[in-house]
Every structure is written in C-alpha cells, then in structure tokens.
C-alpha cells in the first residue's frame, strides 16, 4: 500500500469536492524534477542493511532481493542515504540536463 500516480490529474472547478474529503493517496505529480544530484546504489557493495530505507524522508527506497532500490520518480536527491550508508555503497551523481 502506498500513494500512487493517477491517470486523471486535472480537475475542473465543478469536480473539486466541496467538502473536505477525497480519495487517500492520490498523486498527480512526481518530485523527480527537484533533484540536481541523484543517489546511485552500487549493487555489488549493498548488503541490504536497510539503513537508507529507514532514514529516507520520502520513503523512496525499498529493499528488493536484499538490495536497496530507489524510486527516482519521487527521490528529491537529499543525500541522507549516501551519508547513512556505512559501507559507501551509495554515490551521488550529477543529474544530466
């Protein structure tokens, strides 16, 4: 379970709910464009210790097959994961223009 991107992303004024309730976890935009640097995981080095997953403010790191995987659609490139990784399996690389 996790909020996810929807197909319908814009609403006319008449469609905007007049009370305060709407579907939970409804995403219409990514955060990828915020990044100037991106974390890149060295899969050979990663031991799946989950510290980057635990400390990511955006929750974009998951552990699959004992390796960290990043959802680049929502990573903002803060670099907390790189700092937290004790074995230096994460490098920050410049985003290409």
């Amino acid at each position, binding site marked *: 379970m996790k909020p996810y991107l929807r197909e319908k992303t*814009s609403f006319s004024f008449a469609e905007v709910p007049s009370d305060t309730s709407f579907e939970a976890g409804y995403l219409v935009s990514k955060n990828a464009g915020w990044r100037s640097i991106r974390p890149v995981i060295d899969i050979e080095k990663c031991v799946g210790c989950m510290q980057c997953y635990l400390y990511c403010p955006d929750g974009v790191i998951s552990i699959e097959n004992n390796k960290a995987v990043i959802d680049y659609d929502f990573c903002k490139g*803060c670099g907390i994961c790189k*700092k937290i990784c004790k074995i230096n399996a994460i490098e920050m690389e410049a985003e290409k223009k």
Partner: protein
Amino acid sequence: MSVTANNLCRDEFFYGHKACAGCGGSLAVRNALKVLGKNAVAVLPAGCMSAVGFNFPQLCFANNAIISTFAGTASMLTGIEAGFRARGIKDFTAVGFAGDGGTADIGIQALSGAIDRNDNILYICYDNEAYMNTGIQKSGLTPFGAKTTTTPAGKNIHGNIRPKKNMFEIAAAHNIPYAATATVGYMTDFLNKVEKASKIKGTKYIHVIAPCPTGWGIPVSDTVEISREIVDCGLWYLAEYENGEFTLDHDPKEFTSVSDHLKKQGRFRHLTDEDIQIIIQSRDAKWEKIRRDWRK
C-alpha cells in the same frame, strides 16, 4: 518484539509529499505511520506537514488524514476518537502530528484539555524549533541563541533571548499516562516509543526533534547526523515518563562538542564564545537534575 528496520511495515503511508529535501518532520511522520499502520487516523494542523501533504489533488497520505485548525490538533483528535468509538470501531489509532508552534504555543490549551480528560489519543510533536511553514519565526520551542526572522542576530542581541519551553515535562506535569522524547536521528528509539504509546490507553505525548534544513541552515543531507549530534552533545535527551516517574533512556558518558554542533548550523553561526558558554552551563544544570532525579 521491538521495532527494527527489518520488521517495520513495508507500506508507505506518506509518499509523494512536497516537503523540502531532507525534511526531518516528514521523516518522523512517514515512519510513525509505518508503525501505526493503515488504521491510523492522522490529524495535521496548519504547519509544514499539512502544507506538504495535502495539495489537492496531490494527497499524500494513504491512510485517513485530515487538516485541523492550527490550535485544534488535540481537540480534533478527541472528536475523532469519540466518533469512531460511537460507531463501534475499535481497531484504530487517533494520532496527531503537530509542529512546535502548533504544540507549545497555539495548541497547548487543547492539548492540556485532552490530557486532562485522558482522551485515548496519541499526540506527536515534531519539533523543528520554529514556525517553519510561514518562513522561520520564533516559537516557544526555539532554543536560546537561535536566529529566526523574528529573533534576528544583531550586534546587541544574538538571536533568541529566551530558553526553549520544556514541553515534555509540561505534558508529564499533567500526570499523563505516557510521555517521551525522541529524535529522528535515533529512529528505532523513536519508533519503539510510538509502538509502546500505541498500546497504552489514555493520552500519550511524544516529542520528537525533527531538523528543518531550511530553517536551521544545514545541508539537506545532514538532517540525521545533526539530530544524532543534538543528543550526543547533551542539548537534547532521550527520556520517558510513565506511572509518575521519569526515566532517562540514554546517558552519554561524555558529551561531544556543543560548539562544533552549533557552528554547523546557520541559525547559530553568529553566537559568541560567551553565548555558547551560557548554553553549556544550562545544559550542565539540566543534566545535573536529570541524573539526580530520574531513573536510569
């Protein structure tokens, strides 16, 4: 069983939000919800976490979540808890995530009332030590010496002239069933406190330090490091209050340098050696009392 990264729920309940990169508040909210699960009903007053979580149609909570008035976190939690109970729903947690301003200043009356009634709610204050969402104004939880837009650092006055309110002990002074302090830097400590609180009936208060890179003047990558250091240098402590007793959870053998810690943060960079001495003295006075009076 204690909460670890490994057994933490894999679902994400706070995702796609628009918090600044490296935001400590969003880290606290994200992980607390992973502990409480999908039946958490979250209340977020005016403040960064509501501002970044609800931008229709971008709605970043997967669980039920609602914005309250700035002052009304605790009273809305009271109403939600009563409403769910009236409908016969038992498996839920009414949890609030309010900022330091929303807690120690404008929301303190509603919180005090809820604790007084012992409503069955969990109130989490994510403390970034200023009114961040409106552009860094001083709150009652801004520490001595910090520069904010309303406590500028000048030649004569060096930032905030007042000490930080002690919200943890204010909550405890109500004889609350459970209160605790934490920091996002020691995440499993925080999450185990959330887990413990969720199993206690009555009002629970958790105060978690959650650095704001924007307001503190630190690199966005340093949030976790700074929020560990604040405990290591003794300017914050990890403690609990339960059954009328305070317990210190972590007693550092030796404190790391307060000066080094403060100088890494833009909001403290103007401080003189004398200012830092004042901060160290108040730290030492506090720890003397803690070590004398609290259980270890």
